[in-house]
């Protein structure tokens, strides 16, 4: 029925996606060429990334509940069922909306362009919920996802052709189109309850910036709430999946151990951020610059961006040498944007997008060097 000439021929690729999801296909090697193939396929590779994000997702649900209960002044322990259920109540709808909105766009394009549905969206659909606050209106999630998939990917020709990271494009869209829902005191889901006195809902980056303009010491302003260990563990306000450096690192371990994410990029983003932090320490013009460099690694979305965003193979540099340069520059730019232009506290988002644009240029020079080596030994 779905085959060529069948009644529902137009929906073939939709059918194919469903069928191959249930059963891996019976296709065999062609007559000429390799007769056996590696056991990997794109579905498995993408699912590896999704699996690597699950610790962050679960932690994010606990944290959403925890932040709520702390903000409204109710006694709570972090790992309570209450926190998990509260978190799930607010986080899972975002995940569902993201997958549904993006999935529909993917399916429409697959049908119109007559190509199979690519599995890349399995990852994008999970990334987007993890980088937005739990308070975000669902319609904005849908809109941002559609914008990201359309503008970030499909207009460039679909999966594999995109220049920008799709999830980061969605995040940037939200940031510039609906700033009031994604900056300020939006990080804690209050669920219509009144917060306790003194509740600010600010993130560590905002606190650091404020104390810096006031001329105080950043580390003492961050206080106990945003102590290094708290920031590392992630029991702080922030986007759903990005607060816990620990669980991001667990994800990083999965990506590196499976070889699906480039360890070069992950290491170099952290390295670049630390180097830039250290340079600022040396300059020390304002208190924010004086903040110890290692704080940068656990604040905001830097770790999450380094592990899950910068490593997107399509939008990153494609050459191994290029990956080092690409990663270091992302790390340095993130901290530079954070410290020098705190109007954009989330430097990693802009840094990743900027370096996505420059990645082909980095590759260009790496490839050019290869061509020159080849040309140099030629005699004609």
């Amino acid at each position, binding site marked *: 029925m779905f085959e060529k000439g069948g009644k529902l021929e137009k929906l073939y690729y939709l059918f194919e996606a469903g069928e*191959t*999801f*249930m*059963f*891996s*296909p*019976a*296709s*065999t*090697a*062609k*007559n*000429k*060429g*390799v*007769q*056996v*193939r*590696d*056991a*990997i*396929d*794109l*579905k*498995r*590779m993408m*699912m*590896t990334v999704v*699996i690597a994000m699950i610790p962050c997702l679960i932690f994010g649900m606990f944290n959403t509940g925890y932040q709520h209960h702390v903000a409204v002044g109710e006694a709570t322990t972090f790992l309570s069922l209450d926190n998990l259920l509260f978190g799930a109540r607010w986080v899972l709808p975002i995940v569902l909306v993201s997958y549904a909105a993006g999935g529909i766009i993917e399916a429409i394009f697959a049908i119109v362009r007559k190509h*199979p549905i*690519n*599995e*890349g969206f399995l990852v994008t659909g999970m990334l987007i919920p993890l980088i937005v606050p739990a308070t975000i209106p669902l319609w904005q999630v849908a809109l941002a996802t559609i914008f990201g998939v359309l503008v970030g990917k499909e207009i460039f020709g*679909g*999966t*594999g*052709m995109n220049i920008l990271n799709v999830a980061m494009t969605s995040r940037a869209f939200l940031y510039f189109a609906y700033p009031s829902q994604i900056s300020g005191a939006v990080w804690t889901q209050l669920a219509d309850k009144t917060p306790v006195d003194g509740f600010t809902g600010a993130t560590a980056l905002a606190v650091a910036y404020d104390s810096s303009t006031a001329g105080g010491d950043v580390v003492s302003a961050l206080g106990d709430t945003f102590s290094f260990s708290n920031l590392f563990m992630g029991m702080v306000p922030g986007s759903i999946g990005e607060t816990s450096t620990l669980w991001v690192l667990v994800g990083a371990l999965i990506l590196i*151990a*499976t*070889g*699906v994410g*480039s360890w070069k990029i992950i290491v170099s983003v952290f390295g670049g951020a630390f180097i830039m932090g250290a340079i600022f320490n040396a300059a020390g013009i304002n208190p924010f610059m004086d903040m110890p460099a290692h704080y940068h690694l656990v604040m905001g979305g830097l770790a999450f961006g380094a592990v899950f965003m910068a490593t997107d*193979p*399509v939008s*990153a540099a*494609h*050459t*191994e040498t290029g*990956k080092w340069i690409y990663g270091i520059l992302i790390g340095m730019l993130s901290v530079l944007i954070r410290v020098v232009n705190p109007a954009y506290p989330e430097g990693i988002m802009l840094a990743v997008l900027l370096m996505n644009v420059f990645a082909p240029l980095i*590759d260009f020079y790496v*490839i050019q060097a*290869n*061509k020159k*080596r*080849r*040309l140099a*030994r*030629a*005699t*004609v």
Partner: protein
Amino acid sequence: MSKIIKLKKGFDINLAGKAVHKIADSIYPETFAIKPTDFVGMKRPKLLVNEGDNIKAGTPILFDKMQENVMYCSPVSGEIVEVKRGAKRKILEVKILADKTIEYESFQSYSPSDINGLSRNDAQAQMLKAGVWPNIIQRPFGIVANENDSPKAIHISTFDTHPLAADVAFTLQGEEDAFKTGINILKKFTDGKIHLNHDLNAEVAKVFAGVDNIEHNKFSGPHPAGNVGVQIHHLDPVNKGDIVWTLTPYGVAQIGKLFSQGKYDASRLVAVCGSEVKTPQYYKTYSGGAINKLVEGNIKQDHVRYISGNVLTGEKIEKDGYLSFYANSLTVIPEGDHTEFLGWIMPKKNVLSFHRAWGLFSFMNGKNKEYVLDSNTNGEDRAFVQTGTFEKVTPMDVYPTFLLKAILSEDFDNVEALGIYEVIEEDLALCEFVDVSKHDVQHMVREGIELIQNG
């Protein structure tokens, strides 16, 4: 000076069913075939015989109109029983029913001292006429060499790292003199060096050790360390405008025998191997032999794929098909036309993967585990997504992904600048194996080569 080169990149595919060093009691195929499709780049094959003609081993059967002096000759004596044609009367197979005892066309034979005095032109004329010339493959492009060229070097790899590959030294035992004579003939064709490239981790076999006045290089590393293209890249790369020739050791020995014995000797040892073969071992046959007798009663089950050659670069043939001109092995693996419930996420330990993505545990099995792989593609065609893996299995200073993308977009300048002169299909075959997105890498490489040839 001879070199030792240690390569790290690459991947060994360790399959079950290796041929043991034993030659089966003589089972000779009844029919043989010459297939124009075996010769990459042959444009317009022209037949010189008709059905019913009686021929000898070494009688010209066909030639390519684009290269009229190179004769493709019969491996055995007998009768032309069928010329199988495809669409547009394209010649697919010229089938020969073999005599019980082989009669040979006789060519001039030379004593070792005469060979030294033989001119290039005389040697060339005999090689072109007698059917041994197609053993000489030219780089770039991987096509039968042009007889008017003088290559800057000649490269011969004495070991094969392909999965289940026949042991080259074993198949050439007793051919010491023929091999030496072959090298002496080849010396007439180049002012440059002849490189004999050995496996660093094995003793150099007797047949290769005794050859003097040439370069003996050694290579180590996983597949494709044994590929002559990879070796050339590290010894003396092919640049734009260069011509380099490559031969298999078998081809060298065959050339040698043409001059020392005055006949076109197409006999060869063929490894019959693969997980579905009951007793994987060597068989004595001639080039282009029918496989039916080799597999009869020797296969564990019915649902198998017969491959002329190895699993990376070979070609699927039918049960009544013929080995290709260059093949020294017949590999039999299970056909993989089965679906698998949730096969894309189920954990797997017994299927080989270069990757370690979720649920692929083959890296934990160690290097000595032998795998039974079938012909299933394990996934569908997708866009290029993963980066960096092709480079990990290509021990050359080449960026395969960029080269392939340049080929796809027919970007002539970049195809050339990114190294198309240095690769043929087999050099990037591993990329095709490990590819997450299941591209036909080898087919794309050939398209790139044709783009440059016709450009």
